[in-house]
């Protein structure tokens, strides 16, 4: 598609539950990035992929966060045992090599 599609738009989880977010990048884009935005503030880099390979995961809290980009499937970001501080909007973006990022509209995760 011509847009980055993120699902669901909203997700509510009780503390300790699992959350899984999905992102369908633009067809033909080799790079996928995940960002976390808390309270409309800065975009915290989480992880990047080149096709299905993890490119950089230095932003990921690895003990609870994991992500995948498998062929012919949407990319996913999974949070095991969510915490209150995980409440944020999670944005996915895709791009070609060193080109502008195209963002989805985000998934708003609320942990109660």
């Amino acid at each position, binding site marked *: 598609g011509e847009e980055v599609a993120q699902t669901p738009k909203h997700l509510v989880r009780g503390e300790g539950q699992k959350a899984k977010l999905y992102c369908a990048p633009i067809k033909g884009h080799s790079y996928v990035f995940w960002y976390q935005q808390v309270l*409309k*503030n800065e975009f915290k880099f989480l992880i990047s992929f080149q096709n299905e390979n993890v490119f950089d995961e*230095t932003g990921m809290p690895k003990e609870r966060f994991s992500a995948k980009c498998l062929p012919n499937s949407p990319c996913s970001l999974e949070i095991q045992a969510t915490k209150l501080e995980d409440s944020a909007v999670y944005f996915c*973006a895709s791009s070609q090599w060193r080109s502008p990022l195209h963002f989805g*509209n985000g998934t708003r995760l609320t942990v109660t």
Partner: protein
Amino acid sequence: SQQGEEDPQALSIQEGENATMNCSYKTSINNLQWYRQNSGRGLVHLILIRSNEREKHSGRLRVTLDTSKKSSSLLITASRAADTASYFCATDSMKTSYDKVIFGPGTSLSVIP
């Protein structure tokens, strides 16, 4: 540490005035980009300037890049109420192979009709 940082954090101007936002970064870059975020939406790309460019225009937008000072500015001329949004700069480091695009904290612009 933050690769890009904007100032001011917030800016309020009258419609028709010009708005200038600045961005500073810390390491050598390949390119610098400016994005806009309207409330509740994802970022929209505005303009990309490469490290070997000094100035770029797009409509009412003008971006400058000073690699010696590691800084960039975004000028919006003849502002409109519809320009009200948050503006972010983003950089990708020359030291990495495009594995990480880092955003600054953003400038919140309010254009008063």
